[in-house]
């Protein structure tokens, strides 16, 4: 047995999924916000997952968080106080539908890891309690 056990595997996977949920929350919070220029417009964030292998075990870590290269949409809105001379503003580059689907997948993965943790815990306790 190495230094990592099944609790590390599921626990670290849960933290990684939590990071993913946080980026989704940030993306959804910033969806439909307007910006005066294309450069300062918000772009959706995504975590990059990488598996960490040790002996027979493999857990997952967040390697880094990247900004997607989706282009912000230009919208004509002359009444907006931050619009430029031609009356254009830039919308945050967030695909809300994709974010919601990603959120569901994150929640499912998180639940699965909780289930793994509970099963492993009860099996180990049953083994230790051996009458």
């Amino acid at each position, binding site marked *: 047995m190495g230094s990592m056990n099944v609790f590390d595997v599921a626990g670290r*996977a849960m933290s990684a*999924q939590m990071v993913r949920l946080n980026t989704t929350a940030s993306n959804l919070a910033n969806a439909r916000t307007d910006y005066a220029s294309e450069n300062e417009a918000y772009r959706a964030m995504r975590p990059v997952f990488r598996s960490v292998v040790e002996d027979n075990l*493999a857990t*997952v870590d967040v390697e880094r968080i990247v900004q997607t290269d989706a282009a912000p949409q230009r919208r004509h809105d002359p009444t907006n106080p931050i619009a430029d001379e031609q009356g254009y503003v830039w919308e945050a580059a967030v695909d809300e539908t994709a974010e919601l689907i990603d959120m569901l997948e994150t929640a499912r993965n998180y639940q*699965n*890891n909780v289930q*793994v943790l509970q*099963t492993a815990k009860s099996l180990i306790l*049953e083994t230790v309690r051996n009458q």
Partner: protein
Amino acid sequence: MKTGSFGATRVSWHTLCIVILEYANSGVSHEQERSSDQFLNTGLDKMPSLDQIFALNGGALQLRSQRLNMLASNIANASTPGYKAKDLDFDLAMKQAQNGGSLNQAMSDHTGYRVPLQPSADGNTVELSVEQTLFAENAIQYRTTLSFLQGQVSSIRRALKGE
């Protein structure tokens, strides 16, 4: 008068004790000789060690626990791009371990990558429905092996207590 009678009874009690002890000693030595002879004749000295008794179920439990770890790793990496799901072929590993192979060798010999039912675009071969089913199945098999092992332990304990 009182003390004299008391002394007399003490003496007689002592003699009785010594007689009983001698009788008992001779009996015990006689019994011991006979039982050790019997022991040799029936070959009871070749009783298997506890390690041998628990080898089957203990080994199975270790393999089950390793498989649990592998399936947990697969579930943890369900959304890691490029991750290849691994699994242990329990039956083959158990067969090899029973034929005198070491448990670790059997484990590494029969660990392989899973072939996905439907490959995904990001190269990940974890299919949650498959992993979850196998995880639940393996947990039940672990419990079954554990209860066999507990049964063995309790019958040995009963034999030791002489119940």
